[in-house]
């Protein structure tokens, strides 16, 4: 079975990354690539093309918001949907992320069905 969609998960916590990969493995035809911080994420974005990006905000070296800014200036990924996954639940953080170009915002602790539904919605995959 060949993957129709590609997804990049940028998260510094191995636990969260593993959980996200588990959740996303239930989306049919989705191939997931992992990156452990913003810089690693950028490196992987430069090496390939992704249909969706999930990123944490608080990460060492380069945080998720800077990554979103970079993604929006990248000609290949400027329109790629980005989901921010973070512990910050405040409305201003959400607003800031959306203003920077994020498409959706999910707060931790995450629930797999919520992540799956959001990814399917942004990739326009019928449920």
């Amino acid at each position, binding site marked *: 079975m060949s993957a129709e969609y590609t997804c990049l998960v940028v998260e510094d*916590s*191995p*636990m*969260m990354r*593993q*959980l996200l990969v*588990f*959740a996303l493995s*239930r989306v049919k035809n989705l191939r997931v690539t992992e990156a452990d911080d913003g810089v690693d994420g950028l490196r992987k974005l430069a090496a390939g093309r992704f249909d969706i990006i999930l990123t944490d905000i608080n990460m060492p070296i380069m945080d998720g918001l800077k990554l979103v800014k970079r993604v929006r200036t990248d000609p290949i990924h400027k329109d790629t949907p980005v989901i921010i996954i973070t*512990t910050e*639940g*405040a409305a201003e953080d959400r607003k800031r992320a959306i203003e920077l170009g994020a498409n959706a915002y999910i*707060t*931790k*602790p995450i*629930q*797999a*069905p919520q992540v799956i539904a959001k990814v399917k919605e942004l990739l326009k995959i019928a449920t």
Partner: protein
Amino acid sequence: MAERKPGEKVAPEPSAEVKMERDSFVHTFFKKGAEFTDELLRENDRLRKRLFDLESENAALRTHLASDEAIRELLRKIEYLEREKEQLLSHVREAERNSSHLFTRYSEVEEELSNLAHLYVASYQLHSTLHLREVLRHLKELLTQLVGSRAHAFYMKGSNELVPIASDGIELPELPRLAIHAGSRKEEDRGSHDRTGELIERVFMTGVAHIEEGDLSVVPRDQPAACVPMRIDDAVVGVIVIYSVLDQKEQFLPVDYALFKMLGAHAATALMGALLFADSKGKFPGLDTIAAITWHAARAGGDLK
């Protein structure tokens, strides 16, 4: 003209009056005959017309009868279709019920899968290392990322006291050591620290977790949202204290209870394993050690203890 036979008498010629009378009679007779014929023809026409009318009426009646039969047939068909429609509707309703039941079941299975994934990931990460720093990092991450804790600490049993060994969201030096009073604490001595301390102590002594049920936003600030005893076998060796949770964490969910249960059973063993590993300066036991333990167990006539 016919030839007259001999001897035949010849009738005298009728008189003109008789002739006239005869002619008049014949004329009248023929006239009456013509009238009668006319009358007969008219009657015939009338009867033909009547026959035609009757035939038309008969045809109409036949058509009507056929139409009635068709209507009856249609009515039978409608009745049959109505029954069929009812059956189909009943099937649809049943299918909808099944579909709804399946959807509910699917959602339950999805949730169960998600919960199992949480437990698997937590357990996998917790036991993926023997380095104390890593074990503590994983424990903190587990509480932050999977449970939604904002501030928490780990208390381990020392000699007659509970000692905070690690914390997140709250400075470790701020956390007091808790003497184990075994319920001898005086009521008037209680401050907010003491109430928390008392709760931690109670959870340690009883081995029964304290987990706030319902809305977590209404839990008093000086009261932990959850205290979970850590066990090794049947002995309680410490307590995980969750002081506060993230704003968006409205309440503990079934998966959190399952995680607390898993932590109660595994956090202490992971910590203890890491401490033993640190104590052995990062050396794994060799085959000689395993053989010696097995030999001693065999000599004692029992299992490995």
